[in-house]
Structures are given as structure tokens and as C-alpha cells.
């Protein structure tokens, strides 16, 4: 049963195999109530997550992306999540310049035993996405908006008066 009322949105979760996937499992086994918008993709390590996975997911219309890995210092592969943290932070700051609300992406750390923390994270993130609503799409930008931004940067090119 969805915790949140209203239409389900499309949220994609990339979870590391060793901690967060276990954490989500713990939450399930513990029968913690969770919203059902999240679709989980299990990856070996948060360090495996190419920021482009997230960018492609969002550009192609997902309403939100959540990444979760082992807590720093607890990575199964010792340092995968340290690299991930740098990449994910860079991506998070990059998304708004593309026109994607930074609130549509977040990353966090949840261990395999933290079922309750997982419940909290997924609920808070899902609520956040519901507040933002369905993601606007690049291929459906209103013509008025296009006209508005057309002159935002003055450029030269090979324009010649008619």
C-alpha cells in the first residue's frame, strides 16, 4: 500500500550490493511501511555508479534518482564510496545548470542493518519528489519559454541582415 496518496512517480534507486541493498531488505523483512515509487537497481558498489547513469535516467524522464551506498570508511571495497562521493557531489551541482532540479537527485549512506534509516531516507526522498511533482521534459518545453530564453546569450554567427 503506498504511504503517499496520489499518483505514483517514477523514482530510480541505485543501491550498492553490500550495504544499502541489504538495508532495504532489512526494512522489508522488518515490514517497515515504505512508499512504493522507488525502483531499485542493485550495483556492486556505489563506486560502480557512473554519474551518467543518473544523468541519463533524469534526462529521459525519471522523476527522481536516489543513490545509496555503504557509509564512508565502511565500503566493502575499502574506498569505492569515497570516489563515489566526489563524483556524486559534482553531478548534484551540475544538474541544475542543465535545467534539472537538484532536489530530484540525492545520495546517502545506509548500512545493511539500518532498516529504519532506509525507511526514513526513502520516505523523505519520495516525499521530496512528490513535492516537486512529475519531472518536466526537455522535449515538452512550452514555446513561450523557448522564445523567452532565445536571446539569453548574445551570439554572432553568420547572421546578416536581410
Amino acid at each position, binding site marked *: 500500500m503506498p504511504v503517499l496518496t496520489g499518483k505514483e512517480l517514477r523514482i530510480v534507486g541505485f543501491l550498492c550490493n553490500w550495504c544499502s541493498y541489504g538495508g532495504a531488505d532489512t526494512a522489508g523483512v522488518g515490514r517497515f511501511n515504505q512508499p512504493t515509487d522507488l525502483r531499485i537497481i542493485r550495483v556492486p558498489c556505489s563506486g560502480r555508479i557512473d554519474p551518467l547513469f543518473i544523468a541519463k535516467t533524469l534526462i529521459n524522464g525519471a522523476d527522481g534518482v536516489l543513490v545509496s551506498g555503504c557509509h564512508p570508511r565502511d565500503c566493502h571495497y575499502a574506498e569505492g564510496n569515497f570516489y563515489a562521493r566526489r563524483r556524486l557531489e559534482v553531478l548534484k551541482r551540475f544538474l541544475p545548470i542543465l535545467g534539472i532540479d537538484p532536489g530530484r537527485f540525492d545520495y546517502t549512506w545506509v548500512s545493511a542493518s539500518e532498516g529504519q534509516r532506509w525507511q526514513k*531516507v526513502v520516505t523523505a526522498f519520495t516525499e521530496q519528489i512528490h513535492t516537486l511533482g512529475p519531472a518536466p521534459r526537455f522535449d515538452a518545453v512550452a514555446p513561450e519559454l523557448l522564445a523567452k530564453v532565445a536571446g539569453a546569450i548574445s551570439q554572432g554567427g*553568420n547572421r546578416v541582415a536581410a
Partner: protein
Amino acid sequence: MSRLEELKTRIKEALPGLECVIGWQKGYDALHNTPLFMRSAEDVDKLEWGALNVHNPAVYLPTMAGKKVGVVVKGCDSRSVVELLQENLINRDNIVIFAAGCDGVVDLTKVKAKLAAAGTGAGVVTAVSADGKTVSVTAGGKTVAMPMAEVAADKCLRCQYPNAVLADTFVGTPAPQPTPVPSANADLDALDAMSVPDRMAFWRYHMDRCIRCYACRNACPMCVCRDHCIAQSREPHWLSQDDSVTEKLMFQVVHAMHLAGRCTECGECQRACPMDIPVLALKKHLNRTIHDLFDYQAGVDAAAIPPLLQFKTEEVNIKERSW
């Protein structure tokens, strides 16, 4: 002896030990210079130095691996060489770097706009002269004087390294570092001022005319995957052949993310774009982020490790969300 003549002399001296030396020569008209591959003394005599040397010759270096080559660089080009060295993509022993102080290069898009405003066009240019302060372009019988500050490439308007950061042969007196001009980041400033939905509209508007020629990628000295770019592979299948803005923009994201912490902001991506798409703004934004997060600038120290190839257990500038 002028900088150019001294460069020619020094290159001629070095040429016998080199496969070639890459520089610039006059192109098909007075407004365009073009990359020059010097293999003989007669080739060296064609060398040019000045505001029309817009190209970054470092782009050719990774493709010439295994050969000993020379390259003539502006300050900004030298940063690409350094970044390539940082990443072990070229071998220092195989590269001979020739450099001179740079007084800035023009942005041909800005020159075209000036010509258009004067009622003429870039296609009919017959003469160009530049003295460091002003560029005078004669086109369609009119001579238009353009202050360098108005037609220089953005990177020149905030240039920190007018002299090569690494060179084997540096000729002439070093060029003074220019004072940054506010308009140097007009594109990024405009984007910063926009709302997030407006930015989506902005990219939708500009990417629509992308022809997917990958000039931005191929002109980029740091795009070293070359023939194996994921944009054109079927396995993995990152991009489809749909003529859609999402596919086109996705490639720009691929390019930008693969440049994170590596981009020296030479501006070749945008300069090369035949459709004048302002793709450099994405990299400017990214570089600002990298600088804010890691206090790092690519391509100035050959021994430095790019920030995304290292980490700190306690990151000073990354504030994670508490749930």
C-alpha cells in the same frame, strides 16, 4: 628578431629530430588560420603567430603516440599538454614544446557578429590586421575596427596563463597577464541568473539545432577515447540515433562529465561547433564546481592527480544531507 622569426629559427633547428612540429598557418582566407604540420624548412616558413591562431594543437598529440613531435603552444594550449601528461596520455620524452607569450586570440563568432552589425559578412573578408589592442577586418569593402576586448575569446578575457605553463623553448618576452574582464563569463552569468525551468528551455532551444557531428568532441584535446566514444557504440548503447534534444543534450552531459576535473577550458568544443551552440557554458560551470569543491585547476601541474581520481576520507567542502 620577432617572436615569430625566432620561433621559426628554433623549430628549424629542432626539426631534424622530430616527426613534425604542429603550429598554424594562413588558411583559405584572411580571417582564418589553420593548423600546420611542419615537416620541412619550407613548411616552417609558413608558420603564423597571432590572434588568429585559435586552434588548440594539443588535440593532435595523443593520436601521434610513439612519434617524437613538436608542438607550438599558446598558454592555454600548454595546459592541455600538461593535462595529457598528468594522465599519461602522452610521453614527455616524445614531446618538444615551443611557446611564446600570447596576447589573446579572437573568437570568430564574435568577429562575425561585429561584421554582421556593420552590414557585412564574415564570408567576404579580404584583409585582417591585429596589433594586440584592435583587430581590423576588411570585408565587402568596409574596414571594421574591433577592440580586442570585444572580440577576444572568453578564455583570453580572463587568462591566467598567457605564457606556457610548460615549454622546452620559450621565445621572446613573456606576455603580461591581462586584467579579467567581467564579460568573460557572460554565458555562465546568464545561465546562473535563470530559473531551473528556464535553463531546461535554454538547452532545449540551443541543442535542437545540433547536427551530432561531434566536432565538439573531436576538437577537445581531452576527449581521448577517440574512435571508441560511448556516444557511437552500440554496446553499450548509451545514445540512440533519434534526432531528439534529449539524445543531443545527453551527449553534452557525457562530454562534460568525462571532463570533470580534466577540462582546461580551452574552449575548443564551442569554437568547433558549426552550429554555434554555447556548449562551453557547461564546462565553465563544471570547472567552477571543481574549483569550489576541491580547490583544483586542471592542467597547471604535471604531477597533480585529477580530483576525481583521488579522495579524502573527510571531504572539506562536501556537506552531505542529513536525513
